[in-house]
């Protein structure tokens, strides 16, 4: 049992560290380090531009999308090298956030299902950040129940004509391309009538409307499709096989091993270490200490769970399902942590923004936190996944499973 690199890993780490040391945009390091959930801001620069510039620089030197094959803009690295890179990239990794969906989900789906010429055309600029991709799956009628989606694709000559609406599409407002899951046959049970495509987000008939979130910010969008035409060669997988194609995408989403999840704990511990309460330092208060200890062991538990998964990668194994707990634990924890940080501030905790304690760090965290428990699979869906795929419990009894999609009720009551 050890935390040591193998000689090859150590060599890779040294090379990565040297390159990052010489090339990273150090002028933003401090701001990136201080950013936390709900607040990644650069005071004097445009985050998207800085992120794209860093991604391009990495790509030019062969450090983009490490685990992708070289011909598609990657480095052909092993999974463990990718993890080492993430560790070394540190706070600058925050700049990759807007590429996560493209690199982690759209790219792998394209690699598995697109024609070779499309892979060679579209993947390198996706890797280099010159083109940003989004994922168009969720709909007003299909969130956790993605297969309940209603956006129609109908064949017309060599094209498909798309009509419908997507929602919760992260980054659609700055995306160049997207992968799109549609319904091509409503007369068969819901999982069987789906087909996947990729499309140019600038196509006529695509309209992106940012959603104002409960936090006040807008990271997600609604996307409307009105007679949008997609050529058949942009289809990913067989007609009617979209569900299986989407599983490839979602598996990739959940296999982002080693990606640090925010728990809010380091921020809270730091805060409590200097905070004075009415009757003394917060860190010496029994109640505060008990709360901190409980969160500390969750945070360290997640950290070392991730280390165990990385070790499996290092041995060339596929990590076990333990990693699926990260989002579930961190999501509700960061919400509780933020709530508690404000509780410690008393009545003044209500003040947010620049006038607040720590420039509103915990207030921003609190307001953004509900989203973390929903996006990418709600807490309840994550528990179902653990129960079914890890513990082997039966799936839900699905009343709509063998029913043609167009016979499934659409309203709870009339």
């Amino acid at each position: 049992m050890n935390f040591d690199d193998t000689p090859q890993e150590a060599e890779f780490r040294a090379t990565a560290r040297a390159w990052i040391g010489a090339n990273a945009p150090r002028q933003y390091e401090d701001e990136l380090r201080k950013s936390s959930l709900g607040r990644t801001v650069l005071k004097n620069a445009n985050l998207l531009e800085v992120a794209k510039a860093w991604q391009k620089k990495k790509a030019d030197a062969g450090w983009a999308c490490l685990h992708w094959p070289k011909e598609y803009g990657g480095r052909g690295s092993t999974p463990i090298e990718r993890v080492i890179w993430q560790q070394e990239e540190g706070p600058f990794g925050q700049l990759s956030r807007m590429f996560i969906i493209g690199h982690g989900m759209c790219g792998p789906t394209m690699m598995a299902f697109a024609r070779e010429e499309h892979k060679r055309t579209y993947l390198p600029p996706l890797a280099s950040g010159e083109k940003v991709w989004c994922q168009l799956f969720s709909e007003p009628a299909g969130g956790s129940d993605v297969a309940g989606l209603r956006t129609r694709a109908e064949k017309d000559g060599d094209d498909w004509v798309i009509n419908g609406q997507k929602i919760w599409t992260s980054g659609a407002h700055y995306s160049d391309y997207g992968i799109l899951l549609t319904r091509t046959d409503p007369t068969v049970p819901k999982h069987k009538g789906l087909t996947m495509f990729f499309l140019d987000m600038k196509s006529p008939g695509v309209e992106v409307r940012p959603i104002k979130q409960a936090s006040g910010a807008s990271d997600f969008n609604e996307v409307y499709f009105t007679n949008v035409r997609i050529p058949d060669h942009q289809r990913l997988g067989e007609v009617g096989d979209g569900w299986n194609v989407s599983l490839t995408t979602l598996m990739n989403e959940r296999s982002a091993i080693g990606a640090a999840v925010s728990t809010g704990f380091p921020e809270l511990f730091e805060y409590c270490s200097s905070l004075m309460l009415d009757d003394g330092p917060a860190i010496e208060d029994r109640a505060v200490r008990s709360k901190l200890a409980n969160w500390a062991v969750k945070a360290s538990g997640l950290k070392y769970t991730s280390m165990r998964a990385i070790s499996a990668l290092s041995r060339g194994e596929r990590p076990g399902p333990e990693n699926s707990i990260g989002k579930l634990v961190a999501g509700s924890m960061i919400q509780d942590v933020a709530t508690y940080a404000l509780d410690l501030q008393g009545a003044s905790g209500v003040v947010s923004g620049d006038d607040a304690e720590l420039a509103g760090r915990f207030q921003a965290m609190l307001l953004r936190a509900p989203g973390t428990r929903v996006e990418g699979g709600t807490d309840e869906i994550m528990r179902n996944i653990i129960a079914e795929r890890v513990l082997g419990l039966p799936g839900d009894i699905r009343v709509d499973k063998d029913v043609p999609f167009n016979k499934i009720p659409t309203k709870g009551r009339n």
Partner: protein
Amino acid sequence: MNFDFSDDQKQLRDQARKFLTEKCSPKAVRVVLDGKAPYDKELWKGLAEMGFLGVAIPEEFGGAGAGHLELCVIAEEMGRANAPVPFSSTVYLAAEALLIAGSDAQKKKWLPAIASGDAIGTLALFEGKGNPAPKAVKLAAANGVLNGVKKPVPDGAIADFAVVAARTGSSGRDGDTSLFLVDLKAAGVEVKNLTNLDPTRGQAEITFKDAKAEPLGAAGEGWSILSQVLDRAAVLCAFEQVGGSDRALEMGRDYALDRIAFGRQIGSFQAVKHMLADMYVLATLARSNSYYGAWALSTNAAELPEAAAAARISATQAFQHCAKNNIQVHGGMGFTWEFDCHMYYRRANAMALGLGSLTYWEDQLIDRMRKKNAA
């Protein structure tokens, strides 16, 4: 990076599991649970023959000369099997105290006897309510004899010897405490068995009346040695708790698959699935924290105090949670003496107190994290 046990260590775990599945069935545990024997002597002998009692004891003292990582994997299996033997008191507390502070003669006297299963040892620290603290040690040591009362002492009624914490000074500081070795079969020692939450591991009250004692470690060093012993034991107990958590989770899962209600497996209801998923989450966090503790223990790292406290808290929470919700998944049957669920519930809650309460360890963790940050 290889933050995992080695193939050899995993093989040892499989070997221990196989052995305990055969020799330590729930039926065997019930013999002790029902008060028909103070502990499972056959099993204890078998553990000695397998080399498990002395796995972390050096060869020169009659052990297998492996290390703490090997002891961790065995501890996990002991917890999983709910073994009714004085393993934790003898191996984690008494043997570790001897390894840390014993003289060559003391080691030669007791360690081979522990490894061979001929001696049961324990640590007599507590004196009634409260948590480990130098000022709570009141039992007096003077002129080579001890006077005072210790309780609860784990496995005190069956132990042959005890490491006893005693007061040798009155400065009000840590240096007031010294450790002693006492032969519990000698004159001046009175032992009274106490009923306790977990009858598969006894607790006793021991009264010392001019009982002969020899110093273990230097005078005034008692608290420093004890802190190390408690940290090591915290990691080792955490592995027992992890093993117990996993077993309780498995029992709940298996029952949820077998039991039909409302025309379907109860494991198909989300209320039950989510309860089991949450048990899995806590058990996984505990396992990972315990692995870190194992790493710190086996490398004698400066991080051990923090890692031990984190493992202790996480594993205590996980075992308590899994044990209580295993009963909940079982419904009414889980609350019967006949079903095994309560054995784990008892063990989980007894273990949560054994080395000091959860609150105590929470406090310790924060102190240790602050120390590290200040350094």
